[in-house]
């Protein structure tokens, strides 16, 4: 139930948003993240957007770990 599914916001309505999950579109609740815009990556949980998903942060995480792994002398 805590399964969060990543998707792309394609349309925004007043209280809801249409999110595309790799081809399957669903209307989901956006009350918890009201400022989502079309094009945003989001995590949807039990029919509601609970968070945005940042591509920049994902890239930063990967780059940071590459450096750590290189520097980690064991």
């Amino acid at each position: 139930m805590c399964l969060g599914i990543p998707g792309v916001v394609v349309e925004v309505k007043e209280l809801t948003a249409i999110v595309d999950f790799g081809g399957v579109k669903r209307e989901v609740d956006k009350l918890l993240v009201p400022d989502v815009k079309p094009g945003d990556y989001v995590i949807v949980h039990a029919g509601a957007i609970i968070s945005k998903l940042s591509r920049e942060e994902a890239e930063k995480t990967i780059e940071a770990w590459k450096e750590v792994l290189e520097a980690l002398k064991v």
Partner: protein
Amino acid sequence: MRVNSGNLHEGLRKIIRMFRESELLREAVKKIHKLAPLALRKIDGDKIKIMHVCGTHEHTITYYGLRSLMPENLELIAGPGCPVCIAPTKVIDESIELALNYEVTLLTYGDMYKVPGTSMSLAEARSLGGDIRIVYGFLDALRIAKRNPKRTHVFLAVGFETTQPTVASHIVLGTVPSNLKILVAYRLTVPAVHYVLNQPDIPLNGIIAPGHVTAITGAKAWKFLPEEYELPAVVAGFEPLDVILAVLEILRQIVEGKPRIFNEYSRVDSWEGNIIAQKYVKEAFDVVDAHWRGIGVLPKSGLELKDSYRNFDVHSEYDVKVPKSIDLPPGCRCGDVTLGKAVPTDCPFFMKTCTPNTPYGPCMVSSEGTCAVWAKFGGGGKIKELAKILGLKP
């Protein structure tokens, strides 16, 4: 405004692929094997025990066979991470009673549908004529109730921090119709982790914190782990690389002797969390002592509707009476499995009388139940043996 999602899908797939990337994963696993002996020396024990507290982490670990990549003396333990598994029997019994003997439509998440109650599951109650429907989320429940204004609907509200605000927001904003009542059985993960850490027989060396619960609570919710228990804690995502990096970071902290919180899942989670969601939950609910199926009553571990919103509570409308509920069926080890004291293969019923098609205990039902995950994807050493045969051991 609409956008074309074609290119965006590719972007999303790229993000997911980044955290399944084999080169980085292989490199991280090598470092884990190098750091593990150093960490062992530091803790002066014979095994490093790392617990995660999320059913989806157990899914990632078992589905991708990550335990087979770990050193012999490093154990990944599944902790309390399945809200369906610990939802009290009484709540299921009350739901069945409502569906069978009252003029109501019961709305439930699919995960709860086959969980055994004292005498039957909701699925069995439906076959006896109970008006029970599966919904994906509270939005569906609102739609169904609004479409049938003359009929009372009851939403079975189970879940951890991720699900709670989806209901709280609508209650606070006044968008819940008067013919939709709520049977609240929400539980909080932080008190459960406290409980596990105070058990004498499960000494732990690190915690992998749940990435999606943390989207709501913020990483700050886990600061008690290094502060009170001196435990390394890593908030992690749900791709294989996320979990591997979390293990590596925990080992690094053990070796350095500096436990702290590390947010590996910064692409989704922040330190403060979803403040809007937190406000809604605080406004709608009070924190109360609550029963966890197979475990007992944990202090300040559940939610109930505040007095000002009590009119949404199903108990304000119906005086539902059920005979004394049976917590777990005799011999079922779901409670121990939930606390990380046992693994599914320790249970005499696992894959014998208890299977995903005919679950005997609650841990065998939800896709987040450790028993169900092991049953579907093969936990308990088989993967390890297979990995050895295939020469996949790093």
